[in-house]
């Protein structure tokens, strides 16, 4: 991809290792790389708890034409823009991240608990998660 052209439009970004760290405008960035550089597939969204209340979301885009990956990452607090209008596969990924990290995706049509029962307390993959559900101690 054309890095100079990209930084011209999105000034709020920097290269960190082999991934692009952006500050805002997630939806716009992903839409841009999809339409201009043919990154037609979203392989996955990786979420990782930074430990200071923020969650790092890494979008792993893939271009089937050139068979190469593009990593775009953003730090969010509790809310993020949903990219489900661009990639349908993001619906599943965002549901998973909502369940495990508690990040709300604005615009996702089906946001609710996925893996855990609906009344489960806490989001298990956060670093400050404590196993305090009474279900863990049935009959003991």
């Amino acid at each position: 991809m054309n890095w100079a052209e990209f930084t011209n439009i999105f000034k709020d970004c920097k290269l960190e290792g082999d991934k692009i760290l952006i500050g805002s405008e997630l939806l716009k960035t992903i839409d841009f790389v999809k339409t201009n550089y043919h990154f037609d597939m979203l392989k996955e969204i990786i979420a990782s708890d930074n430990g200071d209340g923020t969650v790092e979301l890494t979008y792993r885009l893939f271009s089937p034409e050139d068979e190469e990956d593009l990593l775009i990452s953003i730090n969010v607090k509790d809310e993020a823009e949903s990219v489900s209008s661009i990639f349908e596969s993001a619906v599943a990924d965002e549901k998973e991240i909502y369940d495990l990290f508690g990040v709300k995706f604005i615009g996702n049509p089906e946001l609710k608990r996925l893996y855990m029962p609906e009344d489960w307390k806490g989001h298990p993959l956060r670093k400050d998660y404590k196993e305090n559900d009474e279900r863990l101690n049935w009959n003991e």
Partner: protein
Amino acid sequence: MSKLKLNLGPQHPSTHGVLRLILELEGEKIISCEPDIGYLHRGMEKMAEKLSYIQYLPLVDRIDYLAGFFYSELLCRTVEKALGVELSKRVKAIRVMLLELNRIASHLLWIGAFLMDLGAVSPFFYAFRERELILKYFEKITGQRMMNNYFVFGGVRRDIFSLEDVENIINILPDKVKDYEALITENPIFVRRTKGKGVLDKETAFNFGITGVNLRASGVNLDFRVKDYLYEGIDFNPVVIDGADSWSRYKARVLEIKESINIIKQALKVLESEKELEQKLVNPLNLTLPEGEYIQEIEAPRGLASIYIKSTGEKSPYRLKWRTGSYYSVNLLRKILKGAYLNDAIAISGSLDIILPEVDK
């Protein structure tokens, strides 16, 4: 016509485990489908944060019990690449051979289970008979039938033996596959239930993140084995079919079994020429990965599988994430079942080869 909500699963003979589909019906037509998953969520990713790498290694097979080798390979590969360990030719050939045998076993099980979903019982018995041969061999060399835990960081647990068993398997299999094809492929009932059903075009497949056989049956030549370093020097052609329906997905899997046999033959040749097992195993005690992020990929039987590890230099990963093919296939059901009839729902979801531990992790 009044609408009806129908609950398919989690205990249903044809949902391959514990998938629950909430279907909205108008007559017999499905107007919306919502997959409800998580009935087998075992918290594999959180467990990785509490265990060291070598403690986590045996668990990894359970992510996909039909193709456990692929997930061990991913974890081993991440550690090897991070520490700069090179694999010798023999180790690579052993791994390729076992991975492909595992792929065949997985596809065989799929053929049996899929045909059972459609109501045909005898292919199930035939497919399991051949699968048992492969499992017997796995048991001989690894001590376990499904959870092999045979790959370790830097190589394999011990040298491989009784290669004549593998030769026997690949001599028997082509004839058996011919039998299945004679029995199934042109069978009028099977054709009517699968031809033109569950059509998945290219753009939808990309949009939903579908990879693997399901994508190649839609006419896209995308096989991650081509660029894989393990498969270097091995000559094979990815199976690509234009058709995009359930029938093509069946056909692609059958052809892929043949292609895997071809790969195993080449791996056996390498094993014959490289008799000595040279490997430098990584000491698993106090094993730490240098700080950073690692991503590795492999072409698993159910699509692209990848691992993401974020290490802070501790004994256990800071964050570990799996990407599995089935997870996105389940998400695809929302789209692909819309407008289909209820009696096709099982046939279509079966043809995508969904397995639930991979979905729920």
